């Protein structure tokens, strides 16, 4: 308990009521939007940095939990940004929580959406451009490296004992080798947690 008090003293949560802080946070999401390579999962480390280290909305443990909720829920898992936004305003009450979640989601989607509209309308010209070829081939390996960094980060904040790491590795292999729906893995792992087979 004393450790968590010390941690919260070191990390001062930002006041979103201060409009300058609010604009800074919205600006962070708007900027990250244009860097969401590889379908957006590359941003997870940045979300963790923002929410846990920089703005102190969540603990690492909460981050691991909302990542799991976003993965389990239907729809694109990149909607985790909505849950981050809600976490940022959680003390202000549910209504502000939802409002903050919606604002965060709009901020992360707006720039990439506008760019995508331009891309869709001008694709025939872009298609054979050397820029497009170089972008696709050059950014692919960087995306690969970042995805490994993200996977390792989530693994580190989620698992703390050997059985937990073992479950994660088995799920990873099954994800790659089978077409079983990930919901089954989460259900079985949740049951293992309930039975006390894996712990934090």
């Amino acid at each position, binding site marked *: 308990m004393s450790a968590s008090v010390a941690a919260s003293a070191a990390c001062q949560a930002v006041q979103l009521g201060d409009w300058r802080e609010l604009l800074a946070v919205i600006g962070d999401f708007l900027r990250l939007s244009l860097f969401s390579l590889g379908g957006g999962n590359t941003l997870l480390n940045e979300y963790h940095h923002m929410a846990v280290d920089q703005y102190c909305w969540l603990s690492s443990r909460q981050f691991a939990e909302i990542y799991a909720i976003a993965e389990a829920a239907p*729809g694109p898992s990149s909607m985790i940004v*909505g849950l981050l936004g809600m976490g940022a305003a959680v003390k202000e009450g549910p209504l502000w929580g939802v409002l903050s979640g919606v604002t965060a989601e709009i901020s992360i989607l707006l720039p990439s959406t506008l760019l995508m509209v331009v891309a869709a309308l001008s694709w025939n010209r872009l298609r054979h451009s050397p820029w497009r070829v*170089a972008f696709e081939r*050059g950014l692919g390996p960087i995306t690969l*490296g970042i995805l490994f960094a993200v996977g390792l980060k989530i693994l580190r904040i989620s698992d703390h004992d050997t059985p937990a790491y073992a479950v*994660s590795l088995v*799920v990873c292999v099954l994800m790659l080798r089978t077409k079983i729906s990930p919901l089954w893995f989460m259900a079985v792992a949740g049951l293992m*947690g309930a039975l006390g087979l894996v712990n934090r």
Partner: protein
Amino acid sequence: MAEDAPAPTHLQLFLGMQQVALSSFGGGLSAWSERIVVEERQWMRKEEFITGLTVARLFPGPNQINMAVYIGSRFRGLTGAIAALLGILLLPFSLLMLLGLGYYYLNMNMAVDRVLAGVITASAGMALSMGFKIAGAYARDPVAMVLAGASFIAMTVFHVRLVPLVLVAGPLAMAWYWPRQEKP
């Protein structure tokens, strides 16, 4: 050649994408998107849909959301994109907000906490698989593996943030892979 169906209206775009979102509760967003847009509603031919997927994956943003934006903007420009985006997001996002309210505002008991402790081990495994899933495409290209390794080390060991990493490594990688004028 059969004529294509007339271009969908804003409302049809919204409802079509909502159908995609609803059908894919439980997974398989991409497959449902193709089934509904190409086969059922016949808004696009298959080749055009695949082109859309290519563009959606290439540009920043979540792939399935980008695909909805692509479909909407092909038919109705920016407003069509917004209609399609709302269609694919409204229900899943509302549900996620409800889950979030439950998570943040209901006092969790020990049982829920233990279930979550289990569930996050599975989602961590899913996160770990993301890199391996696309690694095969680069395994035979040593430069790509060096780029991937350097990006991984920069982020994991030196805690370099994503934006500066992409701004520095991106142009270098693009210069290396710039298409050379070999073929006339």
